[in-house]
């Protein structure tokens, strides 16, 4: 049976079902058992499964990542939750030097079924230390999988896949997505890790848009469609492994590509997407690839600058117009930023 669930509910359901199915799954991190429950995503777990399967921790991201590794090596399935991906930056050493290489270091004898969840991207006036994504730096490390579910359906299915995976998987969840709703089957299911998803077919331009940017891209596509421009929106869903085939196949058809990312561009995931095109279909490109993302600056707090810091549907529309050589549309009748307006109060 399928119901309409929010992204946070979808995550919560995945956790409940997997913890029920498998005793070895446990959830830890600052705030996971408290009344806020990581924006609701871990609510009820401590009550339901007990405080030894859902527990609070000291502030110690580096050691707690190693802790998860040690538990995973011994057959447990830890899920370490970070309220913000900015805090994951304290654990880069464990990820790069330990977690990602432990299976290789044991010549395949040891498995690392560790899941790390981290909230990324824009929130509400959060400034430069609570707004980062930086998935490219984790995607850069062989031995790690990095996924970016963008819908409630994927949030549940990819988290279940991550939990059942015998390898370390980082699941990055955009803060603004938590309020997005969609159809979610009640029974447990998996969404394979490493497959892009075509959210909307189209023939004129391919927009590659992961995580929150897929919401912006859909909005842009809807607006452009009214004006006769057909946009194909592809959600890569996974930074690593990366499904370049789906994207390349689409661009071979459309000949045009806009990459819209929730991150800085330079050396970011958007560069990898563009590189795939340069490697696989440069001659099919009718116009140069365009990348959109964070402004090349730390994120400012004040709303007007924050609005300019993040790329959005309007930026995608403008880029598409430029690429097609058409005149700028009058967008005054359109409603943008619906989530930013809905979203209020800290975090």
């Amino acid at each position, binding site marked *: 049976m399928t119901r309409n669930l929010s992204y946070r509910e979808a995550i919560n359901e995945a956790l409940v079902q997997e913890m029920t199915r498998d005793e070895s799954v446990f959830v830890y991190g*600052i*705030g996971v058992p*408290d*009344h*806020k429950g990581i924006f609701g995503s871990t609510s009820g777990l401590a009550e339901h499964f007990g405080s030894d399967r859902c*527990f*609070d*921790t*000291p*502030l*110690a991201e*580096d*050691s707690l990542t190693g802790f998860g590794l040690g538990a995973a090596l011994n057959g447990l399935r830890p899920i370490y939750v970070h309220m913000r991906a*900015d*805090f994951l*930056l*304290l654990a880069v050493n464990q990820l790069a030097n330990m977690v990602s290489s432990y299976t290789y270091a044991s010549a395949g004898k040891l498995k690392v079924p560790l899941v790390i969840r981290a909230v990324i991207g824009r929130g*509400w*006036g*959060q*400034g*430069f*230390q*609570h707004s980062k994504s930086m998935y490219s730096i984790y995607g850069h490390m062989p031995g790690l999988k990095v996924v970016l579910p963008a819908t409630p359906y994927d949030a549940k299915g990819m988290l279940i896949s991550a939990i059942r995976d015998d390898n370390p998987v980082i699941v990055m969840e955009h803060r603004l997505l938590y309020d997005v709703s969609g159809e979610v089957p009640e029974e447990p299911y998996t969404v394979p890790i490493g497959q892009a998803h075509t959210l909307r077919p189209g023939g004129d331009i391919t927009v590659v848009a992961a995580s929150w940017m897929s919401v912006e891209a859909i909005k842009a596509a809807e607006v452009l469609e009214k004006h006769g421009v057909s946009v194909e929106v592809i959600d890569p869903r996974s930074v690593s492994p990366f499904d370049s085939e789906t994207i390349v196949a689409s661009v071979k058809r459309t000949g045009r590509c806009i990459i819209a990312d929730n991150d800085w561009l330079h050396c970011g995931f958007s560069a990898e997407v563009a590189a795939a095109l340069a490697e696989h279909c440069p001659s099919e490109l009718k116009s140069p690839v365009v990348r959109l993302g964070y*402004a*090349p*600056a*730390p994120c*400012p*707090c*004040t*709303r*007007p*600058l924050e609005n*300019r*810091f993040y790329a959005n549907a309007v930026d995608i529309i403008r880029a598409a117009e430029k690429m097609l050589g058409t005149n700028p549309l009058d967008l005054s009748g359109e409603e943008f930023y619906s989530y930013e307006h809905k979203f*209020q*109060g*800290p*975090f």
Partner: protein
Amino acid sequence: MGFSPKPTDALKLNLELYRKLYLARQAEESIRAHYAENEMKTPMHMSMGEEAIAVGVVSVLGPDDQIFATYRSHAIYLARTEDSDDFFAEMYGKETARLKGKGGSMHMCDPERGFMGTSAIVASAIPVAVGAAFASRKQGNDTITVAFFGDGACDEGVFWESLNLACLMKLPVLFVCEDNGLAVHTPQSLRQGYRSIAAIVSKFNCQVLEETSTDAEVIYDLTRKAINLIKANRQPVFMHLQYYRYLEHVGVNEDFDAGYRSRKEFEEWRQVDPVNLQRKKLLGNGTSETEIAKIETKIDRQIENSLKKAKDAPFANDAELCRGVFS
């Protein structure tokens, strides 16, 4: 300002402390009154409850001493600068603020006045304070660097590394651990594998001072002692100071209904509220109700005025977005 012997005029000191306590408290009351208007779009980690620590420590510091702090720094910032214009302009994210709204509540910074900035990544500013103290010593300055942080910061490895470094290099650092027993909603019993942080730190090559008072003057005196120790022994000092956080971790409301702590505890601490305590002390010391009301009215007007200016001010234009990334 200026590091000097304690004013022989204790009354003058107590008036100064009260002025700052009242400013910090009322500025936050003003935030609480206006936050729901949704014009201050910045997550607020309120100081209410910790004013005695902020005011007591900061009031001892000289103009060249430096402060590094955290996302929870309203009181520290106001005690240091008493500049409510800049404060509210920043809360409203306006161009008229020194930082033009780029920082917001979590990231105030005013290096010209020795408020060297904050970090909202717990414990991350502590080593920066140690480096600043190194520079101070290397440059032959006789200044102190203060690192404010919460009890949660002691969970992080970088706290231990920084403590070790300062003790090893004998740097003029004043570590101020503002202990409210909580990290967000997590009590120390779920975070600390030890009984007393003070007992551990005292085994490093530094001095440890502990206090639970909410009397700003007590904190002031203790800080003077701390700074004397730093200078006399050429060693850091670690101050462990307790207080009670009145409001939710982030946001402007109470949260005693959330279940992780009781209103009763709050009521007990309210008995020794740092602002009230200081007011009563002044009354007991012979200051008249009228005199006190005069101070209060002046600050109320100042805040009202700052708030209005902030509301009326323009936002910075888009060109600010990428300005100042590099020097």
